[in-house]
């Protein structure tokens, strides 16, 4: 279409045969050019006329100047048909040749990747009208009407006449000219009201400079230790006159200041004191004891009564509870007939997990009483119903107990640190693992049991640890205990004896107790017992046995509770085990004296330790005696002193005999239907004795925070709170805790804000109550007031005795 000399043609096969341009035979894609003579075409035209393929281009053919015509096979149908016919010589030449030259060029410049298009000058083409000339015609302005022409001229005769010119002043004649003067036209003047003006402010800058001398601080000298005067210099200064003068002048001032201090307590906070008074006299808080938690266990505490409750001294929230069978009176007498329904245990309960006990201590028999060792809370000593004394070591479970408060679920096994290839330990691990699976708390077997021969015959009713600063030996003399660990126990039982026991060094827990277990694989020991005291089983003997009897040996006392004067511990929680200086025991039969024995000469003999003992008996007597052993001159054997005093104030068994935590010589005894307060040294009688109450008192304890307050439990499940400063004839407050008899009360200070009272009852339930803050805080001067009160009572007692003597 763009090439006017190219005419697409269709060649039928007949035509192709005639002209020898058959497709794919004569003419192929590469060789697509065919030159056909003009005469042949004309001939064909004549012969075939209308059906000839050249018919459409007949005219072109006839006009073709050359002899041969080029027909090109158009395989790609570039021009619309399978052949096209080239109408001009030039084009023919171009088509025939350029492909050749192009091919040549391509062969020459094969490396060149650029396609060089040969420059074709623009080909002149006839203009094709697209309608623009019409627009031009419309827009152009043409005259529609021919213009009229006028010519005006003067009469012909006036042309060419002579003229003379003269000058005339234009200003003389007014109308000869018209003046257009310029004037200020007000309508065109615009008054400028606002003008935009650009202003630039330039600060006045002035340069000035000064020079100062900068002194920077530099250490001239550094002092590493303080200056001190030598002794001579000190002496000199001390004796100089100047000093004397100085002292003279200053001394007066200082005295005044000190006097002022004496007169007035500068540190007294009036506001605080005011608040205290108000709270005491104001409205009562609604509940003195708030129920905090109560514990019971279906397996171990059901149908049993709790005999003793002890708080763990260091770990918050852990209480240990021992249970015993509820025995009728007859059964209590014939203890041997009692059948053990279930393994008695001591349960460790935790606040965080009220249902599952954390730990259980296995006991061969029911435990009547037990205590934690004050210097090492992992040792627990307990007294059994058959008179034996047991020791447990729970140092392995200490970690677990401490964790018990943080995780309330599950029971973790702390045997992780002991797992290794030894057989013993794999057994241990399996045991622990089994324990874990059944979600039972781990059972700790006792690590020492006293020998049956030498223990008590009747149930052990009270057990206490002796304080850590003295020990005694078989001779009864007290020695200083250098190691700050409690090593001795005292127990009493209703078979009229008080026994002192000592714990040998190896029993005390050391770090490598687990390692010892690992080493001795020959002996099979129960997995979780440190075998350090293996040899102590059943051969533990007491150190001193004290027999309580009156002046005539017929009447004996059956102690139920004892109280030693020196039972105030200062519990040291340091875990380091110092090397023990054990005493050399003079007698031969002592299988348990150990490794390092030092001569007892080195230890000081403590003579000012009071060896007096208060004993509360089965029959309600209070006996005041001395357990110091003295060598009887006659028989040369150590014999206990026979000095004893007894008081009969109670009618029934003494349930509690306790020293006040604030006053060392004030003792509270509770038994039967009344209680009494005693002062050591006052031999006339109790300084305070309560009247008989309606119910029986069954348990009691001093308050740990307030000097004049103590708690008494009754057999109807009430707790009476006595406050001696308020009322001394009746309890100041009472509250019902449970339905059955209260068996044990134990207060505890867990934190300065939380004061607990653990109350156990006959049904095996342990109630933990919280003493409300206000009530547990002592008022100002309470201590002094109580002291005054007691002294007054003592005086009154003396007076009474004198008067009625």
């Amino acid at each position, binding site marked *: 279409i763009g090439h006017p000399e190219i005419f697409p043609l269709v060649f039928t096969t007949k035509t192709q045969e005639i002209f020898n341009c058959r497709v794919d035979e004569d003419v192929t894609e590469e060789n697509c050019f065919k030159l056909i003579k003009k005469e042949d075409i004309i001939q064909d035209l004549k012969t075939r006329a209308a059906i000839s393929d050249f018919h459409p281009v007949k005219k072109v053919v006839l006009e073709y100047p050359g002899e041969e015509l080029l027909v090109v096979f158009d395989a790609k149908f570039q021009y619309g048909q399978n052949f096209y016919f080239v109408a001009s010589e030039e084009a023919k030449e171009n088509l025939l040749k350029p492909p050749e030259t192009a091919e040549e060029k391509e062969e020459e410049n094969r490396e060149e990747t650029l396609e060089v298009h040969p420059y074709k000058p623009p080909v002149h083409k006839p203009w094709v009208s697209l309608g623009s000339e019409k627009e031009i015609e419309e827009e152009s302005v043409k005259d529609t009407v021919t213009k009229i022409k006028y010519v005006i001229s003067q009469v012909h005769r006036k042309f060419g006449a002579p003229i003379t010119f003269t000058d005339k002043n234009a200003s003389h004649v007014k109308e000869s000219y018209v003046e257009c003067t310029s004037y200020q036209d007000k309508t065109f003047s615009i008054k400028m009201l606002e003008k935009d003006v650009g202003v630039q402010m330039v600060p006045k800058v002035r340069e000035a400079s000064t020079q100062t001398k900068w002194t920077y601080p530099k250490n001239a000298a550094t002092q590493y230790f303080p200056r*001190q005067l030598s002794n001579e210099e000190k002496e000199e200064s001390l004796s100089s006159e100047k*000093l004397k003068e*100085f002292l003279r002048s*200053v001394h007066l*001032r*200082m005295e005044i200041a*000190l006097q002022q*201090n004496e007169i007035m*307590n500068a*540190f007294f906070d009036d506001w605080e004191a005011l608040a205290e008074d108000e709270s005491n006299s104001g409205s009562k808080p609604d509940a003195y004891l708030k129920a905090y938690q109560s514990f019971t266990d279906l397996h171990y505490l059901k149908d049993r009564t709790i005999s003793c409750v002890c708080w763990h001294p260091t770990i918050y929230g852990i209480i240990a509870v021992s249970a015993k069978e509820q025995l009728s009176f007859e059964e209590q007498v014939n203890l041997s007939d009692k059948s053990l329904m279930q393994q008695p245990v001591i349960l460790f309960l935790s606040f965080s997990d009220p249902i599952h006990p954390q730990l259980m201590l296995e006991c061969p028999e029911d435990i009547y009483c037990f205590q934690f060792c004050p210097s090492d809370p992992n040792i627990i000593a307990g007294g059994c119903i058959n008179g034996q004394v047991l020791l447990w070591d729970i140092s392995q479970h200490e970690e677990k107990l401490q964790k018990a408060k943080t995780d309330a679920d599950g029971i973790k096994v702390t045997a992780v640190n002991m797992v290794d290839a030894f057989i013993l330990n794999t057994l241990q691990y399996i045991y622990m693992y089994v324990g874990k699976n059944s979600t039972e708390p781990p059972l700790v077997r006792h690590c020492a049991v006293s020998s049956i021969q030498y223990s008590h015959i009747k149930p052990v009713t009270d057990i206490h640890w002796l304080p850590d600063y003295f020990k005694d030996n078989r001779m009864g003399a007290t020695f200083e205990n250098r190691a700050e660990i409690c090593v001795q126990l005292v127990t009493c039982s209703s078979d009229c004896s008080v026994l002192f026991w000592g714990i040998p060094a190896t029993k005390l827990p050391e770090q490598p107790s687990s390692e010892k277990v690992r080493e001795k694989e020959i002996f099979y020991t129960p997995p979780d017992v440190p075998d350090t005291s293996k040899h102590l089983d059943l051969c533990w003997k007491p150190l001193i046995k004290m027999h309580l009897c009156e002046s005539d040996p017929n009447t004996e006392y059956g102690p139920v509770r004892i109280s030693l004067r020196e039972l105030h511990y200062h519990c040291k929680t340091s875990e380091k085990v110092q090397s023990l200086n054990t005493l050399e025991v003079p007698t031969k039969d002592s299988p348990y004296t150990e490794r390092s024995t030092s001569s007892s000469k080195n230890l000081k003999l403590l003579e000012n330790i009071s060896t007096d003992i208060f004993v509360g008996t089965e029959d309600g007597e209070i006996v005041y005696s001395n357990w110091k052993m003295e060598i009887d001159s006659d028989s040369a054997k150590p014999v206990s002193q026979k000095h004893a005093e007894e008081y009969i104030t109670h009618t029934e068994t003494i349930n509690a005999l306790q020293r006040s935590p604030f006053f060392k010589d004030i003792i509270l005894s509770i038994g039967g239907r009344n209680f009494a307060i005693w002062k050591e040294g006052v031999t006339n009688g109790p300084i305070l004795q309560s009247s008989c109450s309606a119910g029986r008192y069954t348990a009691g304890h001093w308050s740990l925070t307030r000097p004049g307050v103590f708690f008494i439990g009754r057999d109807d499940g009430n707790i009476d709170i006595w406050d001696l400063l308020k009322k001394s004839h009746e309890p100041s407050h009472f509250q019902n805790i449970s339905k059955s008899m209260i068996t044990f009360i134990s207060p505890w200070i867990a934190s300065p804000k939380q004061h607990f009272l653990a109350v156990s009852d006959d049904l095996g339930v342990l109630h933990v109550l919280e003493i409300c803050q206000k009530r547990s805080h002592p008022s100002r001067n309470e201590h002094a007031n109580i002291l005054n009160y007691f002294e007054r009572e003592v005086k009154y007692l003396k007076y009474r005795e004198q008067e009625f003597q």
Partner: protein
Amino acid sequence: GIPIRTTLDNSTSVQYAGLLHQLTMKARSTVRDIDPQNDLTFLRIRSKKHEIMVAPDKDYLLIVIQNPCE
């Protein structure tokens, strides 16, 4: 200052001497700044735990530490 005579242990008395000397100097300069005719006669510091009394002089310093009377 250097302690001449003391009832406390060495390190404590040295500490007290140094610190209180500086404090006394400061207090004295304060008093004199306000009124140049004035001078410091006695310095008492009451804290929660103790009361410290200082009597200054030209060359010497007397320091008394007292616990509250209770």
